[in-house]
């Protein structure tokens, strides 16, 4: 099997690896880069747990091959918090009990980040539509919707540069 030497930019750092072309980006991030915050639920695009940002856009990392990410700037959940200081979106999820087991949370956080950059003052309906591509088996969603609304308000008063 032919392997490819690749370098992928994640959270502002370069990660070099040797991969088979069939290795998904999600597996590369988790196994080769050790960034296990990106979760895998379904591996066919339905659940949203593997959502990351690629050049600022929310995408399914289970539906990309690692070789396709060469040249792109990726962001995963690990880049959200500043040391022990949670990102305002994470803080809002915590404050509003928007997670129980937390398996789906990384995908929701990055989906929310991309969404709020594009739609800083969302309506309730817009929030629900934006979250439709992420599944959560625990919370029943109401608290996630509340958390995203709270995060929007928090970010409006304290926008963090670069995040």
């Amino acid at each position, binding site marked *: 099997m032919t392997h490819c030497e690749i370098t992928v930019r994640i959270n502002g750092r370069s990660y070099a690896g040797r991969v088979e072309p069939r290795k998904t980006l999600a597996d590369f991030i988790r196994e080769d880069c050790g960034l296990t915050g990106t979760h895998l639920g379904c591996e066919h695009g339905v659940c949203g747990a593997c959502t990351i940002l690629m050049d600022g856009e929310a995408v399914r990392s289970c539906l990309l091959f690692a070789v*396709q990410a060469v040249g792109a700037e990726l962001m995963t959940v690990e880049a959200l918090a500043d040391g022990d200081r949670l990102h305002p979106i994470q803080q809002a999820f915590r404050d509003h009990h928007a997670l129980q087991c937390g398996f789906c949370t990384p995908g929701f956080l990055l989906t929310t980040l991309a969404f709020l950059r594009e739609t800083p003052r969302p309506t309730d309906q817009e929030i629900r539509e934006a979250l439709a591509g992420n599944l959560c088996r625990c919370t029943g969603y109401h608290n996630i919707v509340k958390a995203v609304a709270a995060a929007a308000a928090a970010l409006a008063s304290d926008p963090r540069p670069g995040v």
Partner: protein
Amino acid sequence: MKPAPFEYFAPESLEHAVDLLHAHGDGAKLLAGGQSLVPLMNMRLARPAVVVDINRIPALAYIAADTETIRIGALTRQRAAETSELVAARCPLLRDALRLVGHVQIRNRGTVGGSVAHADPAAELTAVLALLDGRVVAQGRRGTRVIPAADLFVTYLTTSLEADEVLTEVQLPAVPTGAGWSWMEVARRYGDFALAGAGVVLTMAAGAIAEARIGLTGLGPVPVRARAAERVLAGRTPSEALWAEAAAAVRDTVEPDGDIHATAEYRRHVAGVVVQRALREARGRAADAAGSHG
């Protein structure tokens, strides 16, 4: 779930992509947005020996328009078309249909050309192409050809594209100025493939319907053009009774399949419902060109 091994190429020109497809024959698959192909590969329902990734051919991503036609490069992301001002101005029907294609994360990668080439019987874009009498441009070894929507869709997940042809452009006639349009569908959850969906373009003249176009998705192996219902509507004055008549014509002609998501009978019923809703909304949006002769 891991894809079977494959050989990977990322050509930087269309010509190179065509050559690779030609050289590797049936074992090769084009990879565009990967939002349909990669799930199939992850589940090993597809095991291409060779993957030809066209994402490094930026010349295939563009949106252009003249007065009559909007031309969309095959690699244009669905999200880019959805948020394009040109699409909103010339073909708002496409924008409204795209909003219901999967979720934003899917549309950020999924391409316009990929959706058409994949020919899922429940895809929104295939019905939009059929109802507007759109066309696609395909490039192969022997050159370029233009394929009208009516000749493109063969059956489930099958088009008349040759194995070594790349779909390069989707051409959609603009929605005429003043015409009303609507896309309506019923899905089990927001963003799911539709159980049944309908697109309508309605042109009014002097209080009557000058032309009605209706395209349906989820109701058979290929997108359906509801010709019988279009004929029912032509020349008539809009009313709730007329919408019901059109819906009945649709229910009489479609031959949906039943599956785990819905029975054939339920799909047939929903087909009428979405057509009525779409006609109502399209009528509300149509400028009534009273006095003109359409």
